[in-house]
């Protein structure tokens, strides 16, 4: 039954997002509900994380439309972790750890502790997730071009999200990584308007990502950068991924049990 309902709804629905359209040429379509956080609010902890991303062991699609619009996430704030160009999926989560199944809650958490563990320590002496820590101190990752290239493993955005990261700010993304980030709702894959931003930032700089204003503020250096609008992908990530989004918007039945 669930299958039938979903099929029909999916077939009837007109395309509703552009998960693979990263070069956003549109304005974000959630333009009214933003509640911009003060940039002086300095917290090293992921902001409102629990309200947007359900823990894997909870019922994930319990978010109602009304509660989610009133808690729209508009800013992320905290220290950033800076990497270079072409960070591939083996550096984000090495293949030896792919035996971990992201849909199993304990293995999801374990993936988080291993995020970016494949980065060569000679180039990146500071680990993204400290040894023996369940999560990262860096809610925002700043990167160069072609972030997430390589494999189609969804473990990559999952590991970053499970570690507690909220957003990657990169010059560009590999297609499958971008799509997986949106489909899972694990992380906002944001793109910079300018090239070379990552060279002007240092791991540990305190930054704010302002989704509504499409900008990145580096409080440590005092510089501000324009980001490309996240566009139609934003509401999908905010909902918690593609399934949550299509349920929320009524495109498929509201829960598996009722279908």
């Amino acid at each position, binding site marked *: 039954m*669930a*299958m039938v309902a*979903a*099929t029909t709804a*999916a*077939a009837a*629905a007109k*395309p*509703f*997002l*552009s*998960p*693979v*359209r*990263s070069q956003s040429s549109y304005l974000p379509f959630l333009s009214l509900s933003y509640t911009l956080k003060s940039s002086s609010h300095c917290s090293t902890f992921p902001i409102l994380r629990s309200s947007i991303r359900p823990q894997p062991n909870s019922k*994930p699609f319990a978010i109602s439309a009304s509660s989610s619009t009133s808690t729209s996430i508009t800013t992320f704030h905290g220290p950033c972790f800076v990497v270079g160009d*072409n960070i*591939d999926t*083996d*550096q984000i989560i*090495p*293949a*030896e750890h*792919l*035996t*971990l*199944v*992201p*849909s*199993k809650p304990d293995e999801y958490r374990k993936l988080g502790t291993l995020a970016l563990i*494949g*980065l*060569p*320590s*000679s180039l990146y002496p500071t680990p993204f997730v400290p040894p023996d820590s369940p999560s990262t101190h860096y809610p925002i990752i700043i990167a160069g*071009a*072609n972030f997430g*290239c*390589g*494999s*189609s*493993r*969804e*473990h990559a955005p999952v590991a970053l999200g499970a570690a507690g990261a909220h957003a990657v700010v990169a010059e*560009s*993304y*590999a*297609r*499958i990584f971008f*799509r*997986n980030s949106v*489909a*899972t709702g694990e992380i906002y894959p944001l793109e910079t308007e300018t090239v070379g931003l990552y060279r002007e930032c240092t791991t540990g700089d305190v930054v704010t990502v302002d989704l509504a204003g499409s900008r990145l503020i580096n409080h440590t250096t005092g510089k501000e950068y324009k980001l490309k609008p996240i566009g139609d992908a934003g509401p999908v990530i905010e909902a918690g*991924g*593609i*399934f949550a989004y299509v349920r929320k918007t009524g495109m498929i039945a509201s829960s*598996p*049990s009722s*279908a």
Partner: protein
Amino acid sequence: MATIAMTLSRVHFGGKSELGVSSLFSPSTIAHRCRRQASNKIHAVMTPTQSQRPLSTTGSVKHGMTMTEKILSRASERSQLEPDENVWVNIDVLMTHDVCGPGTFGIFKKEFGENAKVWDREKIVIIPDHYIFTNDERANRNVDILRDFCMEQNIKYFYDIKDLGNFKANPDYKGVCHIALAQEGHCRPGEVLVGTDSHTCNAGAFGQFATGIGNTDAGFVLGTGKLLLKVPPTLRFILDGEMPDYLLAKDLILQIIGEISVSGATYKSMEFIGSTVESLSMEERMTLCNMVVEAGGKNGVVPADQTTFNYLKDKTSVDFEPVYSDGNARFLQDYKFDVSKLEPLVAKPHSPDNRALARECKDVKIDRVYIGSCTGGKTEDFLAAAKVFLASGKKVKVPTFLVPATQKVWMDVYSLPVPGSGGKTCSQIFEEAGCDTPASPNCGACLGGPRDTYARMNEPMVCVSTTNRNFPGRMGHKEGQIYLASPYTAAASAISGYVTDPREFLR
């Protein structure tokens, strides 16, 4: 006919500085038109159930479409598509394996319910291949999860393995998914194949749309048989000229990736045409399409022709309808190469676009050679390596690991006579050359894998490999250095202990 036409419009371009980028939206697809005349397998892509008469049928606003646009057009029941449109596509085949299958099933159950049934038990192909011959308990468990799901859902195509001690005791077991898909007849012209593996693009060699997706998208497909896809614009690669006998398709794709970079085809389709491509075998076409993802490509396609149809004979009973790019199809860019002027290449550490001539790297001392994977572990890849060993008559100077992609390839390595050898098999030639005994077929050390994976790089060594990626840590150790190369170059390097141009031995 096609060859003559191509000669007329051909521009010769060789090395990097001579990269040919001809005009945007080039209308010259003479070769295609010729093939269309030659083949009567062409069918209209429009759906018969359109309520409104599509503009395209009037002929007045007919836009040409590329192969990829046509395949997606048919699969989305649309008469006309433009690049960048998002469309719901009906999926012909969904493939998953032991690394992403369990997570995909988890999402499917969570979203569609514990008792949900897959959309079509005959359109799902499940291939354990990544972490098979290991004592890693979680890896073994993941294969068990595949089996349980396939039993529960009565999945028709599940290539199971239970006896890890002797792969030959598992008649159903195949090995590396992309090669198994081809060998078992799951790759068919004009169809849409998605898989939870980035090298799913391999199947574009059959003139179909094939691309890698994540677990969540795959979970959606399991339940609905549909996927929202953005139509990619197409880059066209025109490869002309006679292929020198020291080059393989691996050299061609390394040339192309070196040219356009690891993100040069991001979000785009890569179509390969030209007299050289027409002359390539199916396995070589697979090598070409396999690595389009290394350029960021969404998919790669080679137009189906008699070579394709011959390969498919006896492999599938499913009807298929190939499609071809229209003469007036619009391509984002054309790249032309004169293959006769190319030389054997490698991709140096740590990026597949870090292209160099093999002979420029002759001073690079190596520690090992690896021949295997979906990219470089097919029957013809081993025949090519054997040819170099045979021609040299020498023994390898470094450990040389051989991992056939599938059980079928393994059988070929042990049974097919190598041309010019007086009837010797690849396995005999490898043994005489001092290579390691060909291992059990699987993805092996191409992507490192669990610590006990055969031939995994557990030390910071230098490896020449016929695989597809050389980012840090890809084959195991983060400080390991991987030179990607053709089977010719890999075998030549094994003999000398340095990165070596195969012409050293093939002349």
